């Protein structure tokens, strides 16, 4: 494991708040050495880090390196304190801690921060960092974010007033509810590092495509990564949905508003699913259009599970294509549920899915109703009977 020893400029000359902005960070085990913003210190730490790694390889001892680094830092950056090295231990000039001092002097003593230079969690930094405490108050799940590599360090390094606040205000202007902001940032912390110009450009692009303000806000809440994608990519996707599916502009907008994940992911699985629907299942063009406008999730569903459900519904339950196209919710349901309920109805002799015949059971009622309502209304049996039947499958 690589030991990332970092030179911590121990705060002896600089006030506390500035120190927090630049020098402390949370280190995740897998993250690389990150460098300070100040340019001289940048080169300094690089030099020292290379030295320390070499040092570490030679001597296999961590502690002497730390002292070396700290001393060097003090020497380079704070030349006034170079006397540290040359303290004469026998001199009786130094102040004793029991000496009394005035109130102002006591108050102005700079306390070196007890913050650890690196940590695997954000807990030590939350109370001291304004950004992190404000994020927690907003409802951002810092624990989840610190599991992701490098995100923790990034968050600590953000400045609340310069980086975070303008973007949060931008999202609020867009119409995203305040309660949803926390979830949004938890899912996509990189929205806080995206440049405001890009964000505004993408929002204006969406508005130019005649998405209403509320729909843009809803899309951003549902798909937090949406505004991190470039305008070309969004354009490409929207164009695909309109052309390939042959939908009108309004229907395409409707699908995308309901399932904005379509704009975020890759187009290849969607193309595969469409091919499967057309060739394997044998749906006609207008049936596919109807299915996709009713249940857009079919486009990003797992191909194998979709095939399993359709195979069972069409071949075992003997439901024709037209009925499946009429009730596409059945393709979105869980296979186990469909199977158990169908076998129960078959056992009771009530498996009637043709609308022309009496005692017809529509597919959406089969799938959508909760268990107790299904048992009482559709199967006309008790819940215990259904459970006993489940144990015979």
């Amino acid at each position: 494991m690589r030991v990332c020893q970092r030179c911590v400029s121990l705060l002896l000359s600089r006030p506390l708040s500035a120190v927090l902005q630049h020098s402390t960070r949370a280190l995740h085990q897998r993250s690389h050495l990150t460098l300070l913003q100040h340019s001289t210190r940048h080169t300094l730490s690089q030099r020292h880090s290379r030295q320390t790694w070499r040092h570490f390889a030679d001597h296999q001892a961590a502690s002497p390196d730390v002292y070396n680094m700290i001393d060097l830092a003090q020497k380079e950056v704070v030349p006034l304190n170079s006397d540290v090295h040359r303290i004469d231990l026998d001199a009786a000039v130094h102040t004793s801690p029991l000496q009394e001092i005035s109130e102002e002097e006591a108050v102005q003593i700079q306390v070196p921060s007890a913050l650890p230079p690196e940590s695997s969690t954000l807990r030590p930094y939350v109370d001291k960092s304004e950004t992190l405490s404000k994020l927690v108050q907003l409802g951002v799940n810092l624990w989840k974010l610190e599991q992701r590599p490098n995100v923790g360090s990034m968050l600590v390094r953000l400045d609340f007033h310069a980086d975070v606040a303008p973007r949060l205000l931008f999202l609020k202007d867009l119409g995203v509810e305040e309660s949803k902001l926390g979830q949004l940032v938890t899912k996509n912390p990189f929205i806080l590092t995206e440049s405001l110009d890009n964000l505004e450009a993408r929002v204006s692009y969406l508005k130019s495509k005649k998405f209403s303000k509320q729909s843009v806000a809803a899309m951003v809440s549902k798909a937090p990564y949406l505004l991190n994608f470039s305008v070309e990519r969004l354009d490409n996707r929207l164009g695909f949905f309109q052309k390939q599916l042959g939908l009108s502009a309004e229907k395409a907008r409707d699908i995308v508003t309901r399932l904005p994940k379509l704009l975020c992911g890759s187009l290849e699985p969607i193309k595969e699913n469409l091919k499967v629907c057309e060739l394997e299942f044998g749906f006609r063009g207008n049936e596919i259009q109807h299915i996709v406008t009713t249940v857009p999730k079919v486009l990003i569903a797992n191909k194998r599970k979709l095939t399993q459900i359709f195979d069972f519904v069409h071949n075992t339950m003997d439901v024709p294509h037209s009925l499946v196209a009429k009730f596409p919710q059945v393709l979105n349901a869980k296979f186990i549920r469909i199977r158990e309920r169908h076998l129960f109805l078959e056992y009771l002799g009530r498996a009637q899915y043709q609308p022309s015949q009496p005692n017809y059971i529509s597919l959406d009622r089969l799938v959508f109703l909760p268990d107790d309502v299904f048992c009482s209304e559709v199967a006309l049996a008790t819940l215990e009977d259904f459970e006993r039947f489940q144990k015979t499958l």
Partner: protein
Amino acid sequence: MTSQAVRLFRKMDGLFAVYKPQGVHWKHVRDSIESNLLKALNSCPPPAPQLAVQFQLLSGGENSSSKDVVLSPSMVPTLADHPLVTGPQFHKVHVGVGHRLDAFSSGVLVLGVGKGNGVLEHLCKSHVTRDYTLEGEFGKATDNFTHTGRVIEKTTYDHVTLDKLERVLAMIQGANQKALIMYSQVDLHTQEAYELAVRGLLYPHGKSPPILTGLRCIHFNPPHFTLEVQCVNETQKYLRKLIHEVGLELRTSAVCSGVRRTRDGPFKVENALTRQHWTAGSIIQAIAHFSKATRKIRKSEMYKQTAGQLNSNAQVQEQTRSQTEQINQQHVELSSSTSDTVVDRETPVTLSEGRTKH
């Protein structure tokens, strides 16, 4: 001072049974049960955050160099204990699986939580019998012995009658009885061995291949037929192969269209939890229900261990045998009424009895 979450966690210790649906891998069952238990544990209110003393610098005047600077302490809850920073209270609940069921089979699956996992191991290694219901279909043979596999051959099955099937089953059971006697390492010429055999309390010691202690046909409707099996030390693939061999013996071919476990030791299908009941409340209830059986298993294992230590002591060995026999006897008594016809298969009286039962 224990929190609500810790009290709930301490209740999750023991064994319970779950009905695994067909087509689902046992690992998914275990994972969903674990996530349901964790969900219940983490929904309990977290402990109160610690308070920390913060000194806030309040200056009297506007300029920073004023003389009346006052440091005022105050107790403020630390954000470091906020649940969004610390994460959930529980990250893992140890849920173990007993004798596994492959994805094609369904039925009783024993799971252990917390301290029950130790007992689970003993249950697996002990020679408890398990009840299965096998559904077969004559007419074809596939590569993996199931009706969903690739078909290798197709045959006619008009010549198969219930009588022939029963004869084949009797022959298979005879062979298994011989194996049982051999692996149980008893000398059948002794009186005790004879009594054990009559009561159906023989079981294999040490390592043994799968042995069927009971086998009969419940339902015969060509091409479909259903067998009920009691076995020791088996795998589901062996049982599907059994169906295939039954077909071969009848000069036709057969595939297995369903393997369903109805009993695993003392855990029966009536008390197994279905999918809707895989929640923390029902699981804790089920653990309480099976606590007696769990305690018996633990006790029998303790006896076995002491017997292993004092290997030379024949009396202790007798005691172990009687303990494990008690458990098996309870299985035999408590399991469905089909088992009482299992032991004396040789006599033709019981054959007809078996047939008229359904």
